[in-house]
């Protein structure tokens, strides 16, 4: 049973992150000591409710919002669903047209599929070769019936930083109220987010991408914005998320946000250094690679994504895993649909090259040593797999 080896270099922070020690410490008292239920009025319950209110305050500060504008959910996916469908259903009578892009996270796309089956019309704006949304097409696509625009501030696969402020300006220029949702799950604590400066109505966040616990999300909802709940039941703190809250998880999310926010500049600088070290190392040591997404400032400091031609991504991923390096892949073989990543397809990558895509996602908890270790291991893995491939890298 040597297969499930000791991990040496975890570079799949875009998928999930380990809970930070300080975060777990902050959560612990809420399991056995302050275990009260927020809805009740005696002492224990008060402590639970106040913990949630403190958490709202902390999270709201990191995005320049107000505490009461934060609703906690059970994951980022639930925040997205609530934002997009909640706003669409609430504005059904004003129009049935929704705009997003063709490089959104599967959660956004599946919510849009559902809306299409409910009779809404969804347009997917194209992106350029770097994954940047086509603002001209956006302008042309907005019409009288448009009620909602949803865009991610950072693409989770190829790291493109979208010009969400320009998207926001275009949306606001329309004169009438169009809801604007930003999926900030991949961008949170990697790029600055300011809901006031952006003028965004809704914004989705998830705890487990910033060293918080899995199964906790948040939705920012601008004061006065009415959306339709998707779930029903008795209300403890928020009518948009009925039932008993994951109090410890919410406290953990707030702690993770506080930690990352306090060290934001330092963390970004560190991730940028690691990103450049990794990219430089790959480009120096490897052949027949292709970078996905932009270079420089338009790229998230956390994202590195290359295709290594002639080898299949799942095989790369599992071989790297055997060496203790964790990455993700855009290969079809790692998905249920057996289709290559829709994001790579959208930026014009041929399927046979998309299958080779290997994504490293960096966190502020990574070290230069981990980058160097990955760089030591990678060439051997790729060379090995190329040797057993019937396809030549130079032919792709």
């Amino acid at each position, binding site marked *: 049973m040597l297969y499930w080896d000791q991990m040496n270099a975890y570079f799949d922070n875009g998928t999930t992150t380990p809970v930070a020690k300080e975060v777990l410490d902050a959560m612990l008292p809420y399991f056995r000591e302050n275990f009260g239920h927020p809805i009740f009025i005696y002492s224990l319950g008060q402590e639970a409710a106040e913990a949630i209110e403190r958490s709202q305050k902390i999270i709201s500060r990191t995005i320049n919002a107000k505490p009461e504008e934060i609703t906690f959910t059970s994951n980022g996916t639930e925040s997205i669903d609530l934002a997009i469908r909640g706003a669409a259903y609430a504005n059904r009578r004003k129009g049935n047209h929704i705009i997003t892009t063709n490089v959104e996270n599967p959660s956004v796309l599946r919510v849009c599929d559902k809306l299409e089956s409910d009779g809404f019309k969804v347009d997917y704006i194209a992106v350029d070769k770097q994954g940047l949304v086509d603002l001209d097409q956006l302008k042309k696509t907005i019409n009288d019936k448009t009620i909602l625009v949803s865009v991610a501030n950072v693409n989770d696969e190829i790291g493109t930083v979208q010009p969400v402020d320009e998207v926001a300006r275009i949306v606001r220029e329309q004169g009438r109220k169009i809801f604007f949702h930003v999926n900030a799950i991949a961008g949170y604590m990697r790029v600055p987010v300011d809901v006031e400066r952006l003028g965004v109505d809704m914004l989705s966040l998830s705890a487990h991408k910033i060293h918080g616990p899995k199964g906790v999300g948040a939705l920012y909802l601008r004061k006065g914005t009415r959306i339709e709940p998707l779930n029903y039941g008795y209300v403890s703190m928020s009518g948009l998320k009925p039932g008993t809250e994951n109090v410890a998880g919410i406290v953990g999310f707030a702690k993770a946000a506080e930690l990352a926010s306090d060290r934001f500049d330092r963390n970004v600088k560190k991730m940028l250094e690691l990103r450049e070290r990794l990219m430089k190392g790959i480009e120096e040591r490897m052949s027949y690679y292709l970078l996905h997404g932009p270079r420089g400032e338009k790229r998230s400091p956390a994202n590195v994504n290359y295709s290594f031609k002639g*080898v299949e991504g799942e095989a790369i991923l599992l071989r790297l895993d055997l060496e203790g390096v964790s990455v993700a892949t855009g*290969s079809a073989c*790692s998905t249920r649909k057996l289709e290559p990543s829709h994001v790579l397809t959208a930026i014009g990558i041929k399927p*046979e090259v998309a299958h080779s895509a290997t994504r490293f996602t960096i966190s502020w908890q990574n070290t230069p040593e981990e980058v160097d270790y990955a760089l030591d291991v990678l060439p051997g893995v790729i060379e090995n797999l190329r040797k057993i491939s*019937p396809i030549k890298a130079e032919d792709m």
Partner: protein
Amino acid sequence: MPAEYTERSLLKYSQKLIEMFKNPKNIGEMENPTVTADEGDVQCGDAFRMFLKIEDNVIVDAKFLSFGCAANIATGAATTEIVKGKTVDEAEKITIKEITESLDGLPPLKMHCATLAFKTLKKALENYRKMQK
């Protein structure tokens, strides 16, 4: 697939498959094979090549190359391992089931990988029969 059931089993590998992927048998180019066959489609993310060395109607050696995922590589190794030492007649009777069972099964979504290895084997055997005529 029904929404109410967990979908993970659709992708999960057996320990035996993982072991075979880690140390795949019979992988690599073969010098002077008796027959070679290619299957698969790079655009679909898989391509497979099989080499057989056949002496007196007995498969004395089998090797393969794969541009594919772990299931692809493991089924290639399993297939070549099974045919080695068999006569061509025996090899023609091999079923996909034998291949997958030798790996303790494949996740449903990866069955096409076993099909690919199996099809390449059949093609190689056909090529051999044609050569004999």
